[in-house]
């Protein structure tokens, strides 16, 4: 009952929007308003049909993209958490790196993608690098903020209870930082899909991004939308997985 109450409003809204889109597209009104040919403006039903017909092709390319996302996220997770702990423990490292890290966030990493393709070729490596670079920041910064948010009184209390620096980190600071790290992970996972597709756009021979470019060139608009649907579904599923893990791990909140 509570689940229904919670999910009913967004689902109803989604159904209404899809219904409006369906009517506007199938009557040709939307295409006319946009001054386009009918086949360039697919209806939700046509997208669903394309989703089913091209399921093998979509699944094959989705797996390529998902693998890039997961491996890139894995690299970002290891590097981000390691960086956060190192910067947290060393005042000097923090003072040196923190302003540069924040400033570097203004660099649109996505536009660096073509360079990475030149360097690493058409394989999985440039995609991994882009996903990892983009996911690194929310993970590292959130975790670092979390580690620093510990109540100084708790640290004092631990110091008088014989705790070493490592024990304070493991028993107090790390658990305090966990919810922050999970927030960062949710942002990172949502970004990972976009990053992987941009990586593929810069140069690839497979993946959902590659398929989108092909569909765009061949005016396969319905399948282009189908690829977007699959990509979003993967990102949503990953965010949901992270949220589920958070609920399992962070039981005290």
């Amino acid at each position, binding site marked *: 009952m509570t689940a229904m109450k919670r999910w009913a409003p967004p689902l109803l809204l989604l159904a209404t929007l899809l219904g409006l889109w369906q009517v506007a597209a199938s009557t040709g009104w939307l295409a006319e308003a946009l001054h386009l040919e009918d086949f360039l403006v697919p209806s939700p039903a046509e997208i669903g049909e394309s989703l089913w017909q091209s399921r093998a092709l979509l699944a094959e390319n989705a797996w390529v993209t998902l693998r890039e996302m997961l491996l890139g996220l894995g690299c970002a997770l290891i590097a981000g958490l390691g960086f956060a702990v190192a910067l947290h423990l060393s005042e000097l490292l923090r003072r040196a790196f923190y302003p540069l890290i924040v400033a570097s966030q203004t660099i649109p990493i996505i536009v660096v993608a073509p360079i990475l393709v030149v360097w690493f070729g058409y394989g999985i490596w440039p995609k991994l690098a882009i996903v990892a670079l983009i996911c690194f920041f929310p993970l590292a910064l959130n975790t670092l903020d979390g580690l620093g948010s510990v*109540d100084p*009184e*708790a640290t*004092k*209390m*631990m*110091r*008088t*209870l*014989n*705790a*070493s620096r490592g*024990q304070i980190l493991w*028993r*107090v600071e790390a*658990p305090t930082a966990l919810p922050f790290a999970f927030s960062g992970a949710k942002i990172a996972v949502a970004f990972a899909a976009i990053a992987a597709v941009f990586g593929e756009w810069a140069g690839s021979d497979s993946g959902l991004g590659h398929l989108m470019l092909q569909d765009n060139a061949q005016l396969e608009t319905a399948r282009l939308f189908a690829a977007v649907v699959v990509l979003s579904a993967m990102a949503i599923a990953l965010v949901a997985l992270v949220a589920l893990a958070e609920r399992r791990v962070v*039981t*005290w*909140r």
Partner: protein
Amino acid sequence: MMPTTEARDFAAGATSPAGAGAIGAPISIRGLGHSYGNLQTIERFDLEVPAHAVLGLVGPSGCGKSTLLELIAGLQEPGQGELEVGGARDSRGRLERCAYMPQRDLLLPWLSAIDNAALALRNRGVSRSAARREAGSYFERFGLGGFERAAPAELSGGMRQRVAFLRTLIADKPLLALDEPFASLDAITRAEMQEWLAQTLASHPRTVVLVTHDVEEALYLCDRVAVLSARPARVVEELRGPAPRAANRDACVTDPKFVVARERAMRSLREGRRGPFVPYSETKAPER
């Protein structure tokens, strides 16, 4: 005060280098000074506390009594003067001899009550099961029986405070530094906890420094109460608590002698806050 059998057992179970053999640490403070930037919080401060004494520090808000407690506990380094706790002059040595209980219980929400209480043992490298066994042996006596696996959020305010005190006690340090331990509790729970603490200290004797803004609490719990002036803190007056300490708090605090001492402390507090203070050397304990 002679340690009871129970207290001796507690001390015998000690595995820390600082706790071995010693269940009390005298404090000697001479000419202590401390400042935050240009703000002199403590100036030319003198205080002697014998081992096993329970000393109360009362004073107006912001007079530096919490800073004094952190200095004693080894959490800060003094600017001037000498500070000796159980023979140790450096902050590391003081830290080894002192367990600190902050105003808020600060129980770690990701640990159960028993794991919170056992933190000091775990930090010392005791295995989880052995640490739980030792901490668990106190739960019944501390009125926490059956709540070993409870999350801190599931405990009442008084129970949380008892777990926090157990965590401090289990560290097995000769000196306990308590910073307004019951300030966050309601009046009834606070009175109960004061009575409970008096009994617990009687059975587990330690040198105790208790910072509080509650004169009655200080006089009831402590052998000696130092009334501090406004910043920079100095001892305005030193009073003695009732001895022997009555088990019944109500009987103790309504005793006419106690009331006289309390009013006197209140007067000193008010005078100390205004300015002209009586140097420590010129104060005397009240006639008993």
